[in-house]
């Protein structure tokens, strides 16, 4: 459609610049209580399903399989086991901040003691030979906490 025989006519590009997308996430009562627990008490709170007993971390209002409202709060962790991990070696931009992430770093899924779902976070060990599924870990809290997921700085092997 665009090409013709012989000389190729110049194809024009019109440039439009960067777009900012300001965004606030209003966490609602369940996540807010979870974040307040991290910030004010260094404790990790979860919700328990009254029907199947499953404990959700992070907490939420509805248990999907049971379609039941959860209003029982339980404390889980701060220790747990590694359920899965990866060591990221390719540098890329942190989509939350626009800043580069320094590599290597380790992502883990942690199944906190007392929880039935896992939490994705960072581990302070970057040699994959020293990490295994099933190892026990403990949450390390920051001294200065602001009510975000990163009030837990990372998990460490114990």
């Amino acid at each position, binding site marked *: *459609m*665009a*090409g013709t025989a012989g000389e190729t006519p110049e*194809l024009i*590009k019109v440039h*439009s610049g960067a777009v900012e997308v300001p965004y606030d996430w209003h966490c609602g009562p369940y996540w807010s209580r979870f974040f307040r627990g991290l910030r004010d008490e260094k404790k990790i709170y979860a919700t328990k399903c009254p029907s199947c007993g499953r404990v*959700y*971390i*992070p907490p939420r209002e509805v248990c*999907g399989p049971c379609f039941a409202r959860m209003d029982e709060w339980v404390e889980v962790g701060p220790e747990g086991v590694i*359920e*899965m*991990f*990866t*060591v*990221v*070696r*390719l*540098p*890329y*931009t*942190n*989509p*939350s*901040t626009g*800043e*580069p*992430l*320094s*590599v290597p770093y380790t*992502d883990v*899924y942690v199944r906190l003691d007392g929880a039935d*779902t*896992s*939490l*994705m*976070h*960072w581990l302070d060990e970057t040699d*994959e030979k020293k990490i295994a*599924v099933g190892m026990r870990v403990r949450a390390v809290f920051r001294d200065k906490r602001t009510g*975000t*997921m*990163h009030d837990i700085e990372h998990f460490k092997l114990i």
Partner: protein
Amino acid sequence: MPRPVAIIGCGQTKHLSRRRDVSQPELIAEAAWKAMEDANVTPDEVDAVVVGNMQGFGGVAQPDLWIGDWIGAPGKPVMRVTTGGTTGGTVAQAGYYHVASGLHNVVLAVAWEKHSDSKESGATTGLGHVGFGAQVNLFRCGMGLKGFIATSGVGMAAGVAVYQAMYYMHRSGCGIEHFDMVAAKSRRNAAKNKYAHLQWPNCTPEDIAKTEMVAYPFRYGHVCPASDGAAALVFADGNTARKRVRTPAWVKGLASITDEENQLISESGGGVGIIDSSEQMGARVAAQKAYKMAGIRDPQKEIDVAELYQPFPNQELLFAEKLGLFDEGKAWLALEKGETDIDGRLPCDPSGGVMSTNAIGAAAMLRILECALQVMGKAEEHQVPKKVNIAVAHGWGGSTNYNTVTVLGSSPD
């Protein structure tokens, strides 16, 4: 019962990292026109159009505003559908519903992606476009030229699939060498498909094993590209289908299931893995429903070819199991025996799959399109060397929880 519906025309563009030779509507039109020509219908004869791409990708929030008159749709009913990575599968299924309902006789379904026009940071897709948008940061992080070129070629980071791969390895007992085998097979098959993006004739697992580790257990060679491209299908009712083409690809069964059980946000947002992300019960349930509708009792025996949505190699294995093509945790044993090769007992992704061509909005439609080509006997060099009576196409995406399964066959009965 819905009335019989068939795919009577297929159109796709050449897929590349950058289709800078065309604008987004021109790219879409290329596929749409090819499909209408293939179906032997004119734009006037198309009753309605369904379109879709991944929301916000390509830098355009509402492409539906300006593509209508490029694909024969002015003044006709148009529906836009967008379900993340599964978009192409959902667009095709919506095309089917338009005809099966009896409201329309001929419907054009078009899906596409033109990544290269935008620099969106696809945090969940983690593909090459992230690299282009962030190249300054990459160099600040100390990435060398070799790594940068590799990133440009084969994509970036690992998104959610890396955890899914770890779960699958842990559960099934397969190793990284099996991911090398899937990747090499995909590149080899893609070399037979003139529309495919990453083509590598005679690629071996050893070639893939030499590529650098991105995030354990994925190497560069395991990662899909970000492609520009478009796909289109023409759906028709039974009477029209028989009149227009010699071998329609009949839609025998379909289902679309979402599964809440593997929600991920990414480590920087404090993500959640509610359960094992390789469980994918949505795929299993969708397959069971689609097979029931298609009258398939034993998918391991009755299905001749499968196109699975596999941007990463573990996904071909685990989704083949979820679709019932192999027993749980056993797909890698069939892979070792060559059963999933293009000339094997149950070829998987003879097109080269999403591993080789990933225009996200189009990718799940391309699985259905490839199955249609296989049923019609029009897949040219990547036609499997046996009679194809039943083919199954799978789509995966949404965030990580949306599955489509579509069964095509050589006869409507």
